[in-house]
């Protein structure tokens, strides 16, 4: 019986799964994860959020992202731009989902502490995102880390993010999380390189030194008319002051110069800090602006006036204060090679202004490093991609080495530096770095509307709140929204139901679709990948499987059956003589509407037995068991035909339509005693007993054999105890054929029957009916529990309906298979209608492979 709760039931095993090992092949990875500089298992945490497993979600998020709370607010989300759903109806709101999980779990949550286990120590200079990430990685690896921070607080540039984008406490939260998780990190505040400590000391004291000093000095604007009094305020310093709450209020018309994210923050902060108007000028066109599009959009939405393609030419002053700025038209910013080389035109314009703010770039400055030759043009030069510097033990990472970037990129840098330092200290000398990609393999959210759910933006803060400095401009998701958005994930990380178009196969096709045919290198790499063989899906030792049997369809040689509808006879007669059109009246006979019998429910709860009995009676199917499912009606007969299973101690019942002797002793004859003349007589045979039992059965003129492919039909839920032994059918037919008695006895098959297709296969192998057990139990909501089955449902009406539906559907499956082969009666299926796709199954069933039998010379 289907109910929606089985969706969530099937989730449980996967939900407890932890991260599997690194997935090295990009063809096995979802695009969002490879786009994330720290390789976050995004589909994993989206699914965990859908499941409501927030702690697991946060563990997945923060596994490689020590600034999860911050990234939930300010990450540029490169993952979202690579999201496959972005190509259709909008990317999954990955960043907001992260924020949702972090917000919900609260400030105090942190990963469990990791102890120091190694003796060597590392110094890190600079407590920004790169330094702290490296510190956490190294501490997690067991090293003691000494972190020297020039200022009185950790976080570096993150301290300059205005409060309306990032509440101040979140940075502290993330830092507390890191320090609580890594007691091996010792922080030295107010410990500036060249002042409180020097590099040589660090080199002596520690086994490696990492420079992550960031870019903290604003590049000054150099324009005629600027004096120290009118120089205005510069980006980072002012933003830090704003974040601290000690920046003097602005007034009047404010002009901002710069096109990066800092300039956007300044403009928006100015609006909240007393400015009557904010005009932002930058050299670049809107498309060229280095600021992220959504930052620009938000600034414009809030009322910042954007002026693209203008550079400041002169600052006008009155009474020693700024009174206006003259701008000159910038006609191009970059040269042919993409280098910064602005060209200005003649056009100018003048704007009256009361204050000038600028954010035109940042640089690093440090005399000690400059003296050691470790600083050039405002950056720390490195020798290789792993961040080694000219000094043997000294590494550099983050903005000071790579230039300004997003926090998530700085974290990538931190991971890489930790990786490089570990390689250096542990002697592995790696050559390159990429994030470790781990997937938690969480089952996809079984949300029915996943294809239709639209991308939702979180509600924007209301206008009144938006102009406050401390009010966040984005509202969080509510749980319903978060769940809907999580369900939108296409789950590019998981396999779908088709092995023939696996995740890898699809990624390869899409890589072909994304690769320029002229890109020789990429094309050759693809070709080499495609030439790699796949793993043999049928490795040696794999047992014969009924799934390896396929049917041959009708087309031209066999006529296709008309009409299309599922009409096909499934009526079934179980009797001794099976000649076409001739059944002597005096032979015991059991007529069924479908070739389906059931067994194994003797011990099932009464409602299940009652529903099954009624369902079978209504559908015209029979039951095989020691007991007749339910007490008989007035004449003592159960509602459905019952074939009684008889052990050595059992007494044959007159209420049974037939008797099935279980006798394990091959040579033991069946007592030829019918309790009434119409009663069928049969016995169970197994692969072990049939050689002796079949001739005896023929001799005794038994009506049927129950071919037992299960470990033992006499045991409860025997099918759960092992693979079905399909050879029993092949051998029974072989022996009967040898005796020329193929039509002289009916054959029922039991073992591993799951569907109408399985039934069709045994019918085609010459059996008259298939016996089901576990499959029907599953249909009745039975849960497999080890080697038994538990039934939770006790409501008889839905169970009865499930029996009826299941029989109808299963019989229809068998019928439609028969129709595909060109048959109008399921009993006309024959071995010739089948082929095998594996050698072991071909052997076990005595059927040919789908091809390869060689030329038919006699044709």
């Amino acid at each position, binding site marked *: 019986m289907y109910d929606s709760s089985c969706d969530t039931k*099937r989730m449980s095993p996967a939900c407890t799964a932890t991260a599997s090992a690194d997935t090295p092949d990009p063809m096995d990875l979802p695009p969002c994860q490879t786009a994330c500089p720290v390789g976050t298992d995004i589909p994993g945490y989206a699914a965990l959020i859908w499941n409501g497993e927030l702690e697991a979600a946060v563990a997945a998020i923060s596994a490689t992202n020590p600034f999860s709370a911050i990234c939930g607010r300010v990450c540029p989300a490169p993952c979202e731009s690579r999201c496959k759903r972005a190509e259709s109806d909008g990317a999954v709101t990955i960043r907001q989902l992260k924020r949702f999980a972090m917000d919900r779990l609260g400030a105090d949550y942190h990963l469990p502490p990791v102890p120091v286990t190694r003796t060597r120590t590392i110094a890190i200079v600079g407590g920004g995102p790169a330094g702290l990430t490296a510190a956490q990685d190294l501490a997690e690896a067991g090293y003691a880390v000494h972190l020297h921070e020039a200022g009185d607080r950790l976080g570096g540039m993150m301290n300059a993010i205005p409060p309306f984008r990032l509440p101040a406490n979140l940075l502290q939260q993330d830092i507390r999380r890191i320090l609580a998780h890594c007691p091996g990190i010792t922080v030295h505040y107010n410990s500036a390189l060249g002042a409180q400590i020097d590099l040589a000391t660090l080199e002596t004291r520690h086994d490696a030194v990492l420079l992550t000093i960031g870019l903290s000095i604003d590049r000054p604007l150099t324009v005629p008319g600027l004096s120290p009094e009118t120089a205005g305020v510069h980006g980072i310093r002012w933003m830090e002051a704003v974040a601290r709450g000690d920046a003097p209020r602005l007034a009047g018309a404010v002009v901002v110069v710069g096109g990066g994210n800092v300039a956007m923050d300044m403009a928006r902060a100015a609006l909240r800090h007393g400015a009557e108007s904010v005009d932002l000028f930058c050299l670049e066109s809107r498309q060229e602006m280095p600021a992220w599009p959504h930052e620009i959009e938000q600034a414009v939405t809030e009322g910042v006036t954007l002026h693209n393609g203008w550079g400041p030419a002169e600052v006008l002053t009155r009474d020693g204060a700024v009174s206006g700025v003259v701008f000159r038209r910038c006609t191009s910013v970059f040269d042919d090679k993409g280098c910064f080389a602005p060209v200005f035109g003649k056009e100018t314009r003048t704007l009256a202004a009361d204050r000038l703010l600028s954010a035109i770039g940042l640089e690093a400055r440090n005399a000690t490093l400059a003296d050691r030759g470790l600083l050039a043009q405002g950056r720390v030069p490195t020798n290789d991609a792993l961040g080694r510097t000219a000094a043997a033990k000294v590494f550099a990472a983050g903005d000071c080495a790579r230039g300004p970037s997003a926090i998530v990129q700085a974290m990538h840098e931190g991971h890489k530096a930790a990786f490089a330092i570990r390689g250096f200290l542990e002697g592995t000398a790696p050559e390159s770095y990429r994030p470790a990609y781990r997937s938690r393999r969480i089952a996809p959210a079984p949300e029915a509307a996943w294809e239709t759910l639209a991308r939702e933006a979180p509600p924007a803060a209301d206008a009144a709140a938006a102009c406050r400095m401390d009010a966040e401009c984005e509202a969080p998701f509510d749980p319903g929204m978060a769940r809907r958005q999580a369900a939108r994930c296409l789950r590019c990380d998981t396999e779908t139901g088709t092995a*023939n178009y696996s995740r890898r196969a699809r990624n390869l096709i899409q890589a072909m679709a994304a690769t320029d045919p002229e890109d020789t290198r990429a*094309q*050759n790499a693809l070709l080499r990948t495609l030439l790699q063989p796949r793993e043999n899906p049928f490795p040696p030792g794999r047992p014969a499987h009924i799934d390896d049997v396929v049917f041959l369809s*009708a087309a*031209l040689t066999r006529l296709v059956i008309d*009409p299309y509808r599922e009409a096909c006879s499934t009526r079934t007669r179980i009797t001794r003589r099976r000649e076409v059109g001739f059944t002597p009246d005096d032979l015991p006979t059991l007529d069924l509407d479908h070739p389906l019998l059931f067994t194994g429910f003797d011990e099932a709860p009464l409602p299940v037995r009652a529903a099954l009995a009624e369902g079978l009676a209504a559908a015209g199917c029979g039951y095989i068991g020691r007991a007749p499912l339910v007490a008989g009606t007035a004449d003592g007969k159960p509602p459905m035909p019952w074939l009684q299973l008889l052990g050595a101690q059992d007494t044959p019942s007159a209420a049974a339509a037939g008797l099935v002797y279980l006798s394990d002793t091959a040579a033991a004859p069946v007592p030829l005693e019918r309790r009434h003349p119409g009663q069928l007589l049969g016995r169970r045979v197994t692969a072990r007993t049939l050689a002796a039992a079949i001739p005896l059965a023929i001799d005794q003129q038994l009506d049927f054999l129950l071919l037992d492919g299960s470990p033992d039909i006499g045991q409860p839920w025997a099918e759960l105890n092992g693979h079905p032994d399909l050879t029993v059918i092949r051998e029974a037919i072989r022996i009967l054929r040898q005796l020329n008695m193929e039509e002289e006895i009916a054959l029922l098959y039991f073992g591993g029957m799951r569907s109408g297709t399985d039934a069709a296969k045994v019918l085609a192998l010459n059996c008259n009916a298939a016996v089901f057990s576990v499959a029907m139990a599953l249909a009745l909501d039975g849960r497999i529990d080890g080697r038994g089955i538990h039934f939770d449902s006790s409501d008889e009406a839905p169970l009865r309906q499930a029996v009826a539906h299941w029989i109808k559907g299963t019989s229809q499956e068998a019928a439609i298979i028969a129709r595909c082969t060109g048959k109008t009666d399921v009993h006309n299926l024959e071995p010739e209608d089948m082929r095998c796709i594996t*050698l072991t199954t071909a052997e076990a069933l005595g059927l040919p492979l789908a091809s390869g039998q060689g030329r038919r010379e006699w044709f």
Partner: protein
Amino acid sequence: MESIDLATMTIRTANEVIRGHGAAHQDVQIFNPDAKHYLCVGLTNPIRVRIRGSAGYFCGGLTDGPRIEVQNNVSWGVGDNMLAGSIVVGGNAGAIAGEAMRGGEIVIKGNMGSRAGQVMKKGTLCCAGDSSFMAGYMMYGGRMIILGDSGEKVGEDMAGGAIFVGGRVTSLGSDARLEAPTEEELEEIRTFLARHGLPMPDRFKKIVCAGGQLTYPTPEPRLRSLPHPRFTGSRADYWNEKVVEDNRVKAHIGRYRIRGYGAARPVPHLTDLAFRKDLSGAGTDPAAIAGVHLRTFIGGKHGARALDLSMPVMIAPMSYGALSGRMKRALGIASRLSGISENTGEGGMYAYERAEARQLIAQCLSGRFGWNIHDMKRADGLELYISQGAKPGLGGQLMASKLTPEIAAMRGIPAGMDLRSPSRHPDVLGGDDLIMKIEELREAVGWRLPVSLKLGAGRTRDDIKIALKDGLDFVELDGLQGGTGAAGNEVAEYVGIPTLAALMEALEGLEEIDAKGQLPIVLMGGIQNGVDAAKALALGADAVGLGTAMLIAAGCIACMQCSVGNCVAGLATQKADHVARFDIERRALSMHRYLESIRRQLAAITAALGYDDVRGLNRNDLVALTPEAAAMTRLPYEPSAGQGR
């Protein structure tokens, strides 16, 4: 009135002459018709044609406009697929009179055979005498008037239209019911009969669709597909989650489950073969790659204008209906950009696709949805669908959610039904009928276009022999892995043989009758890249077809829920807001790049194996990596080949 004497002229010439007179608006009379087949087939001018005698098969078939009078009798399929005009038969008609007609009127003064008006959609079929069994079988619309008695099962599985019987109704067909005709209907019939000088019976019984089987009851629960490693492969449990789910869902809905895509479990495939030679250097010599000859002509075997493919690759037939209009359009563009052919699939020719594709094959299916003479003439190839890899032995399926009014109108059927196309052509019961049908198609387009067969793999070893003997130009052979927009899960999974085996069976079948190489084979079903294609060509295929892989190149995520109609990528849906997600140009270019990557792979492998023509690839270039693949192909088993290459 011009005269034609069929005693002195072949039918092929006669049809050309008739069409010539049609173009000149000249009426024609035909002497000594001698019950010849295909008379007036493909005629699209409103001229009068008098046949002085009896006509054979498909008289007036695939026409639009002519008024044909047959003095005596006609054989089966009179007025097959006609769009407008009239056919009046003085005597009796054989079986399937007016099959698939979509307009105009057919009047039979005598009796008519069985299955009259099968899959008809519009127009009037009138029989003054008695009708044999199953009149109006699977009819979707239009009007049938039987003045005499109807045989058994009248209106069997009809989905629309009405059948009026003046005499006795022997028995009603499945899902048909009687209702009282309206006065208006009777008045229209009276006028119609008067016009043809036929008497109005005292009373009429009207038979219509009872509507009990048009849609599936209880909808299938919406579940995202279980990851295949949980239920396929050697590590999956016998009683795995998929078995549990399937049995529970079946107990809920009471029928087989339906899904998209082809066989889902792994089967022996081209990926289990490797090239004998080390190909690690493939692709490194640009000059060699550029020099490889890939251009392939296919379909010219019987004198038709062959398809001219820039490489031995075609796009597999996929319908407008299963796919969105935007996706069909993008496929047309991609096929043009890469110089290969596109295929309409079921349901008719989508105008935008026709406009975009340079070479378009029109596919003719059992329901004849959207099939008409004008689109045939606009096509670059005609294809008769017998079966497909995903559901061989059955017809197409299109769930109600995707059968929009627009698509239903194009197909000529009622909207909103769970469409299960007939599994068999009304006029192709077996190999001998197939010859007749193919000749009719050839006649209709003046033998100008290649005619191919779409064949799902099964009894391929013998089917291919019939295909050869029936005069096809090529066969599209579709293995078990061939995809579809909707099929019963069990059929998709277990009916048919793997693509690899299908090709071997076809090749060996032809060899058995010493016809090696005489029937080009386009192999499809699970071909994903140039490496697969090169292996198929080396084994003996003449070209390959790409279906599912094209969808994936266009953004399909393989959720396998194509049948539901909510395709997240907008390519297998008809929901306007989902279709809008599909960016035609961007996706067409993706598919184009995908095809060009295949071209490069084919060329690189061909060159690396030392050939300058893709036709140089042969069996000796291949080995088998698994015992199954070796046994199925009889290639040498070399499990370590390809390792580390």
